[in-house]
């Protein structure tokens, strides 16, 4: 393996991994703060990707405003799904799972009926350009993707650590009863969390739309990998989701290059073996139980 190839694989792995990090951190927030087990998270990711695709191709928008609109769609869907459905079953793993699976089935089937199960891909000049840095050829789109993900993640960090809403979120994740006793409007925070988490998924979907092919199955495919990321990182641990997401991204990028067809199998088995030795994930704690 040459150095150039190694750098290329690292960049690819980082790009994929950061997408997983974004989707997974949204789900970690939803699960850790609002106590909602949301299967439809992956479908928000898919809708974000479709929204960005159609805004870019049909309305000839720039990438950035298109991403903003995708984010708004995700926020809206998350908020609506909380008020309409999850509000009545918060904290119940089975019922939340069933309801969100139902939402996910409806969204996926509607998309595949309306748009037919074909795959779409956009071509944007700047994204498919190739630059050469020190003998390593890289796709500009991947670098932009990494940059974007880093901005979004640091924005999330700022929101959680430095704003009052973030403080309320952290308080609720510790103990929702005490938080509500101290005057935090918990229902509002749950609502905001769902909106924020779904917005993260949608913007992650929007970010990959100019780079990868999108289809109506992508939501349910990504949600499985995101579950794996969360299990490896430790459920409801944000830093765990970041580390595990990048780890899984590297496993995929290196795996597809060296093992081709068996990459997925290898990845799943790796996770299974890891869980034997670390049942609560890398950053998981033994103290707290979500459910």
């Amino acid at each position, binding site marked *: 393996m040459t150095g150039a190839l190694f750098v290329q694989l690292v960049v690819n792995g980082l790009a994929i991994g950061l997408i997983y990090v974004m989707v997974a951190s949204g789900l970690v927030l939803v699960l850790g703060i609002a106590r909602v087990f949301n299967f439809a998270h992956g479908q928000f990711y898919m809708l974000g990707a479709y929204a960005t695709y159609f805004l870019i191709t049909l309305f000839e928008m720039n990438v950035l405003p298109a991403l903003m609109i995708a984010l708004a769609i995700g926020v809206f869907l998350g908020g609506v799904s909380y008020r309409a459905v999850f509000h009545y079953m918060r904290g119940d793993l089975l019922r939340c799972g069933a309801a969100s*699976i*139902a939402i996910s089935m409806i969204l996926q089937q509607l998309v595949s009926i309306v748009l037919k199960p074909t795959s779409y891909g956009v071509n944007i000049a700047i994204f498919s350009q190739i630059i050469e840095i020190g003998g390593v050829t890289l796709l500009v789109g991947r670098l932009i993707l990494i940059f974007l993900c880093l901005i979004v993640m640091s924005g999330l960090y700022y929101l959680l650590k430095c704003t009052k809403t973030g403080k309320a979120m952290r308080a609720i994740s510790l103990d929702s009863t005490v938080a509500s006793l101290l005057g935090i409007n918990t229902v509002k925070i749950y609502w905001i969390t769902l909106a924020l988490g779904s917005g993260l998924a949608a913007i992650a979907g929007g970010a990959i739309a100019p780079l990868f092919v999108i289809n109506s199955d992508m939501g349910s495919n990504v949600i499985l990998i995101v579950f794996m990321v*969360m299990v490896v990182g430790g*459920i409801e641990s944000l830093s765990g989701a970041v580390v595990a997401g990048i780890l899984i991204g590297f496993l995929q990028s290196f795996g597809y290059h060296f093992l081709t067809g*068996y990459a997925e*199998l290898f990845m*799943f088995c790796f*996770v299974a073996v890891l*869980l034997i030795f670390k049942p609560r994930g890398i950053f998981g704690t033994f103290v707290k139980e979500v459910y």
Partner: protein
Amino acid sequence: MVLLLKRSISNNMPVKKLVPLLSALVTAVILPLIFQNPYYIQIGIMIGVNAILAMGLVMLLSTGLVTLGSAAYWAVGAYASTLLVMKMGLNFWLALLVSGFIAGIIGLGVGAVIIRLSKVAFTFVTIIIGIIITLVVGRVDFFGGWGGIVSIPKPDPIPLPFSITIDFTKRISYYYLMLFLLLLTILVSFALYKSRIGRTWKAIKLNLQLAETLGINSYLYALLAFVISAVFAGLAGSFYAHTFKTIEPETFGFWRSIYIQVYAILGGVDFYISGPIVGSIILTVLPELFRMAKEIEPIITAIILLIIVIFLPGGLLSLPEVIRNSRGLGAKENLLPALFRRNKISRSKN
């Protein structure tokens, strides 16, 4: 068998409860004799297989663990039985038992590791294991690859006295075999739920910490539920493979597990036996009715599920209880406010 029957129908069981059970059984026996159309019988067989799988899932749910990978053990049973019969030339009836055993062993190995995880992680990992099994089966040529295995032999004939043999040429004999397996599952479940084990499962679900304080090894009991549900799924898988003659990895995928969970939730999770049966009857017949519009079938299923989950948290079978409660609360209240009130109660609980 007799012992199981004795245990499941204990002395304190009222006759009032026994009558609907027996009448349901008689209906199930007589119905295929009236509707001889093989298409209807096929649907009946599918209902039975789904009900067995959902019962295994409900057994695990009764300990408080949510699994989304129950189709994996179904796949294990189907492939084990198929390979045993086709490559090693084993008798079907022996293969049926052995495949149930193999599914149980794999369930034991997997469960021993993953029950230690937290509850949400357990759910996630069952999904992952379901995918691993489909991937292994699809990738490895020994298991037939993505194309699957076709022309699986039918079950060996059973010789009966007076030179009669059941030779499994007609669809109806498969139906009765399904009914026998279903009955076996029901009896075993009944016996378990009525015994100390079933009560322990309930205790673990209600309050894990308290149960452990009282000296219950929750890990072992949860593992037992996991293994038993794997055995049920393995038996159902073996039966499925030899009834439908073809198996492919896609059949046992992730969505299959989701559907199995939906059967259980639709009927009602707290109704250990009747819930899965009602759920699988509804959700097996309904897609067949919408066969013309195959695209919108999942949407209709999903909308039904959503309505049930929001308005009837206890499942379809809890409807009589909800109505009864609404009557008890006063003359003015009718059914609909009662449904909403139920939600309000659960809202304040969290």
